[in-house]
């Protein structure tokens, strides 16, 4: 009788299933972390973007000046601010976001799909804007 019950239990049991995979948990945590990081990056990037927009406005309303000439003027007057916001901040943001994308790419098994781009598009945008700021600063 007991043996029959045991056999019945065994047939009902089926395969053992793990509903919450650790790897899945790590991936979701790293995506949330990447979104948090990209928000912080965006706040830090907003400062040089604001300065560039102000310099652009200045070059529009002051005849004979360009964005690059205004940038050089700012660089000579405010050496520390321009170094921090136009060189150090974009460089750090590029490194952080590249590492974040690399981590998500690695954890998700190296996909070449649209879903991956959808998860990291904000980080890619931040890298692009940071690169643009570095280019403007280096001109």
């Amino acid at each position, binding site marked *: 009788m007991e043996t029959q019950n045991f056999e019945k239990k065994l047939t009902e049991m089926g395969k053992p299933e793990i509903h919450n995979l650790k790897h899945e948990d790590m991936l979701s945590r790293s995506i949330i972390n990447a*979104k*948090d990081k990209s*928000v*912080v990056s965006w706040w*830090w990037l*907003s*400062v040089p973007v*604001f*300065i560039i927009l*102000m310099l652009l406005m200045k070059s529009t309303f002051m005849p004979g000046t360009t964005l690059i000439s205004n940038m050089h003027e700012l660089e000579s007057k405010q050496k520390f601010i321009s170094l921090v916001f136009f060189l150090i901040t974009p460089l750090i943001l590029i490194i952080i976001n590249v590492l974040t994308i690399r981590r998500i790419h690695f954890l998700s098994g190296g996909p070449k799909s649209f879903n991956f781009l959808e998860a990291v598009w904000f980080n890619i945008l931040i890298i692009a804007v940071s690169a643009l700021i570095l280019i403007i600063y280096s001109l």
Partner: protein
Amino acid sequence: MNFPWFKRIGIFFIPAAIAGWIILLAGFAFAIYSFIDIDNRSHSVSDTMMNFVFMCLIIGAVYSLIAYVTSRVPKK
């Protein structure tokens, strides 16, 4: 200390603990102080606004960095 102090909604970090509210209020207090300080030294409304927005962005950047660090749930 009980973490997290903040939770993220969109591009803003909202306080989730008393320590978070203290940091937010300190940020607001510093923004008001800097507005009064900038207004005393500036020559026009646009001069005040431009410098104040710049200051607000710096306060926001520092606040978001603090919020990011303190909003992470410690690993068990």
